[in-house]
């Protein structure tokens, strides 16, 4: 139920605070979504969409940090010298 799908803001269709919508690209599938909760989103931003409503702008820097943390975790497994340490 609380499924959220990330998609890229392609273009704003309507900037009204209540009825505002934008076209969102979900990996090639495009759909108009309601933007009342993310009025500051700009084209190119990724947003998390739930039940047709964009709920938040995905923080690209935080996403990078998560992936960097993940790579550090993987480092000891790839490190045959045994010198790597998990965070």
């Amino acid at each position, binding site marked *: 139920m609380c499924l959220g799908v990330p998609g890229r803001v392609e273009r704003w269709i309507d900037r009204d605070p209540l*009825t505002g919508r934008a076209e969102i690209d979900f990996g090639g599938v495009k759909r108009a979504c309601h933007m009342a909760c*993310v009025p500051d989103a700009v084209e190119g931003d990724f947003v998390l969409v739930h039940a047709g409503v964009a709920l938040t702008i995905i923080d690209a820097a935080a996403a990078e940090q998560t992936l960097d943390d993940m790579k550090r975790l993987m480092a000891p497994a790839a490190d045959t010298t045994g010198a790597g340490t998990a965070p």
Partner: protein
Amino acid sequence: MKHVDEYRDSAAIAAALEHIRRMCSRRWVIMDVCGGQTHALLKHGLESALEESLELLHGPGCPVCVTPAAVLDAATTLSLTPGVALCSFGDMLRVPGSGGSLLQARARGGDVRTVYSPLDAVALAAKQPDREIVFLAVGFETTAPATALAILQARELGLQNFSVLAHHVCVEPAMRQIAADPVGRVQAFLAAGHVCTVTGYETYHAFVHDTGLPVVVTGFEPVDLLRGLSVCIDLLETERADVVNAYDRCARPEGNPHARRLIESVFQVADVPWRGLGVIPSGGLAIRPAFSAYDARRRFGLDTTNTNEPESECQAGAVLTGRIKPPACPLFGTTCTPDTPAGAPMVSSEGACAAYFAYALSGEVTDA
């Protein structure tokens, strides 16, 4: 798909699993609250991969599962009322009420329609002014902004034929009930990341203070879940009861103020019955009197206060509170299957019973 695929990387999952196994000095008991997390843990084989290190319990975070039979019965009645079309999410259509499911009502001639969004129901009402369009709204705080927006848009459009049969519930009061269970074994919670996207997680500081149980805001992809578990275990191993955000690309401390404002403008906190759990104080949201024109209960004189459930050996309540796991229910996998569900957790795509039936019944799991 960006922000999905990179969190399903098999090498990263393997490394994180190994990291978690190394961290655990004992077999901790952790509850994931959201049904989406339950399904991801089972679908990607994470629960079985960590079986020796952790016991994962699955909480009540499946809105479909906790919607009382009385609400479903009211929806069924509406769908069979001439001139009314009942719209809801696909998940809701197969849940058994005391008089059958909405799908069965449709087979009897009821006007039942599946929509992806409450806003689609508003669009339908605008297109069909001669029909009463009722949206059966269930969901946690994640879904409530969409319902609130639907009501506000309907008012803006001057629609006279749109109303909502709402049963929105709030996560944190249910977590408190589980934490207070005298036979409960939960030692820490993975909080539902998408609920926190809306509500934030500042309220969990009081929860942690009151219960002494750590809370980690957690996402839904395999790497997110393992990150959340890893943070959780770190808190447990170091005996720190705290709130930590392990889903910071989406969840912020204050949540989304725009979404919160939508909820607060249309809804007020109310004592709400949860199927299998009883009435939870402040456990849900009711439509404010100022929007009573859009409240299907008032519009059609519906009474959904009856909390009696159809008699059954179904152990849904015990499953939803983590007292038992689905295979411990006498009906699981025998008389109760996704085709012939005895309880809502077997119906919903996020129900714990359906997850165990799909991914864990035979001991087989799918690869990430």
